[in-house]
């Protein structure tokens, strides 16, 4: 082999490896260490005593809710607690992140993040299709930039892309429908969902202190406009609403964009998508990291999530920048981020027991914020706690319809400041779902607990606590609940009814209704 050819090959190989070379790809452990180092320094600087590391029982419940959207079964929690190896948390995280259930849970999260309007009645029917697409793509470990590109460039006729990278059956067509295919809605939705930029107010007028102008809003909207009859011209144009003024498509920041000579119906979205997911786009990677972080921790590194371009000072921009760079280096690996975040010390802190004023601690993630459960998390956890199968029944329409009804009723906007309404409380206390779950003769957990031979009241109460909280009752709790069951255990039926009372109490508790 001559020298020139050798160098030619080397160069090709180097380019192939490129910025996404395996060697450069950060590991979850290294990223978690980076997060720990940053936050530890911030705690020290603020003179804060962070909470203790949470115990295993707390962890196993938290990680199941966070990664797969439901509490662990009795068996899953028991296995984890019985495991005496030191790396069991990391191994559980890896196993859960690789599961189908994680893909499904995150499909719901990204659907809610990207298309929040699908949580309203008007667009609720788009939910299933979109989540199906997202779950398939997440399960196939599609990189984040590719997901977003597929979404933005979905064919406007709803047909599947011919390319090999398209998913099995579903398409993200709902993205266009959820914005009623209107350029202005698509522009606002796109900027908010993928860049963390709130352009909505710029739609109607310039605000005196806003960073984005009305002109910029409509320039973004123009990408979603259709080309003129000849398909020619340098860029797409759109008329600013309630005016006669035409503006041409232009992007909010560098890098510059290039138009092909001939414009097709979907050209504008393709050009915009290329700019959005470009490594040089200053917001794309950061927005993805920030939103995923807020999924696990309850609040973003930079708040508000929809205003990434603000210059508020009290945020963790340095950490966000570093994580965004790592995200880029990893080839937009979402699973890597999920593993890194949940491995970090901050994620594994207790939700009680830190020494400082609440606002400082929460800003600095010095304890785990108690999060409200989403409707999906609450529904699926109620299934699990009753001893029903933990997997979903997507092929049974009536089961899914029940789930949808429940999820709508218990919808929360943001888990970190979830507001429980009086009506939701009443539903949980007196409604059909919990009534059925506390039927001593029908719910598998209650039947098994009440009818198992040789179980005394203490063991029965412990079983119910463990099913609901993944922990045993404290001595004080055990005393009160066991005394209650014993007092009512005049007949087997009366005892079963008393156990159902205990179960009702646990299901209505704040401990059950939160991730903590």
């Amino acid at each position, binding site marked *: 082999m001559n020298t020139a050819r050798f160098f030619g090959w080397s160069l090709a190989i180097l380019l192939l490896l490129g910025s996404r070379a395996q060697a450069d790809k950060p590991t979850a452990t290294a990223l978690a260490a980076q997060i720990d180092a940053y936050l530890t320094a911030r705690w020290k600087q603020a003179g804060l005593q962070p909470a203790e590391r949470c115990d295993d029982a707390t962890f196993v419940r938290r990680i199941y809710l966070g990664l797969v959207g439901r509490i662990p079964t009795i068996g899953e929690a028991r296995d984890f607690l019985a495991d005496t190896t030191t790396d069991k948390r990391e191994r559980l995280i890896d196993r859960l992140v690789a599961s189908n259930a994680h893909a499904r849970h995150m499909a719901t999260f990204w659907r809610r993040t990207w298309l929040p309007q699908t949580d309203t009645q008007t667009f609720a029917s788009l939910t299933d299709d979109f989540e199906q697409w997202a779950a398939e793509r997440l399960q196939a470990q599609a990189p984040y930039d590719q997901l977003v590109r597929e979404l933005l460039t979905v064919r406007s006729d709803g047909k599947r892309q011919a390319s090999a990278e398209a998913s099995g059956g579903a398409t993200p067509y709902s993205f266009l429908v959820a914005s009623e295919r209107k350029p202005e809605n698509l522009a606002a939705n796109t900027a908010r969902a993928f860049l963390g930029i709130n352009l909505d107010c710029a739609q109607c007028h310039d605000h005196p202190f806003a960073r984005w102008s009305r002109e910029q809003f409509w320039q973004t909207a123009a990408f979603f406009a259709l080309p003129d009859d000849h398909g020619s011209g340098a860029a797409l144009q759109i008329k600013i609403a309630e005016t006669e003024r035409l503006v041409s498509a232009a992007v909010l920041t560098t890098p510059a964009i290039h138009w092909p000579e001939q414009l097709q119906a979907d050209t504008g979205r393709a050009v915009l998508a290329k700019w959005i997911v470009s490594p040089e786009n200053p917001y794309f990677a950061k927005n993805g990291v920030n939103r995923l972080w807020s999924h696990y921790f309850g609040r973003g590194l930079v708040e508000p999530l929809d205003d990434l371009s603000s210059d508020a000072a009290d945020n963790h921009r340095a950490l966000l920048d570093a994580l965004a760079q790592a995200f880029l280096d990893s080839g937009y690996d979402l699973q890597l981020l999920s593993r890194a975040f949940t491995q970090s010390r901050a994620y594994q802190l207790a939700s*009680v027991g830190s020494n400082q004023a609440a606002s400082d601690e929460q800003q600095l993630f010095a304890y785990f914020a*108690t999060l409200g459960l989403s409707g999906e998390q609450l529904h699926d956890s109620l299934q699990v706690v009753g001893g029903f199968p933990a997997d979903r029944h997507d092929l049974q329409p009536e089961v899914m319809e029940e789930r949808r009804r429940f999820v709508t009723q218990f919808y929360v*906007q943001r888990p970190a400041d979830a507001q429980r309404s009086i009506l939701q409380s*009443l539903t949980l206390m007196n409604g059909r779902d919990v009534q059925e779950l506390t039927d001593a003769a029908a719910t598998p957990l209650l039947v098994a607990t009440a009818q198992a031979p040789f179980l005394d009241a203490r063991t029965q109460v412990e079983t119910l606590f463990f099913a609901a909280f993944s922990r045993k009752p404290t001595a004080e709790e055990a005393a009160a609940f066991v005394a209650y069951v014993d007092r009512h255990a005049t007949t087997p039926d009366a005892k079963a009814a008393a156990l159902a009372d205990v179960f009702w109490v646990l299901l*209505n*508790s*704040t401990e059950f209704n939160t991730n*903590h």
Partner: protein
Amino acid sequence: MAIGLGGGAGALSGWFNALADDVGKPSQQSVILLWLAGGASTIDLWDLKPGHANGGPFREINTPVAGMRISEHLPQLAAWGADMAIVRSLTSKEGDHGRATRFVKTGYLPQGAIHFPAIGSLVAHEIGNRELDLPNYVSVARSNNSLGLGGGFLGPQYSPLSIAERAQNATPSATDLKVSNLSRPEKVSATAQSDRLALLHDLEVRFAAGRTSPVVASLQDAHRRATRMMKAEAAAAFDLDSEPDALRDRYGRNLFGQGCLLARRLVERGVSFVEVSLDGWDTHDNNFERVKGLSTTLDAAFATLLTDLRQRGLLESTLILCLSEFGRTPKINGGVGRDHWPSSWSAALAGGKIRGGQVIGRTSADGLAVKDRPVTVPDLIATTCCALGIDPKKQNMSNVARPIRVADPAAEPIKELL
């Protein structure tokens, strides 16, 4: 984002402290807010422009008050002119449904991390009756633009009980004006119920210890308030079937009409703030046909409410506000519709301590501009406060550890109305 909820530690320490919370003294004053969701075409209700191209086809009719002429489609309300005040010079800059709704319902423009409480929550906080088993703020048929509006930094205990909400049911009807699951299941005895609640209480106290969390506060507070509402006397407030058929007919057998009847029943029982929404005012096309229909619904319900309150001796203690997030363009668009218009619009007030029989302010002949006595949204909030005996300059501690006044400090109450 603001995680902390205000009122200091008191608001966060859960249900067991909530009874001891420092709320204002009980009061007999109440407010009923008739909310015209979507931006009502007030130029076709309270401030018509007959003879001008912007006027449209509606005619004006007289009220007993000189200079107070209103739409021909509000004939029953016209008879109440002497008791009503119309503000024709409202002006704001917010033309987006979401932002404008927040502005009108809180008196503050959305800014940063501050969670401004809704005016209903402020009233409940300042003059609500804390002995009451019913929530002091009830919202009926809420539309999506109002979702999430509630106690804000005052805490979740001031958020509304929201019934027949559109987020749960896109087309609620009068039959949805009930509170589901208000009584315990038949299989559960009263003793079992109180045993369950006692066991739960101890569990809750232990879980809340050492936790400062708005989520925990909200869960425990909702549970406590739900339990109180389950008492039979409280639950009876929602029993519209106990009202005479003829009266129900007069209110209108529709969601809004029956919602107004429910509002009277709640106010009668001491609830301090009830809002009833009438949706459908976003008339970008076919404005006149739609506004005519909506006016008929509004006229029957509003006028019957006034009659009913007066007959029961409640009108002097019940302030009624008829408001929207903005008005609509005086210029009629190509689809015979009107678009969003916050520059010049109207509102109506009646009852309570409001001096009726007055028109405040004036718009130009084309309706495009306020010509006399401009009134801002905060002015209206301050007026409401003064009519209820609430000091609009009173400060409450917010979630960003900065005191916030009940009404914007720049607000001037409309003194002619007081």
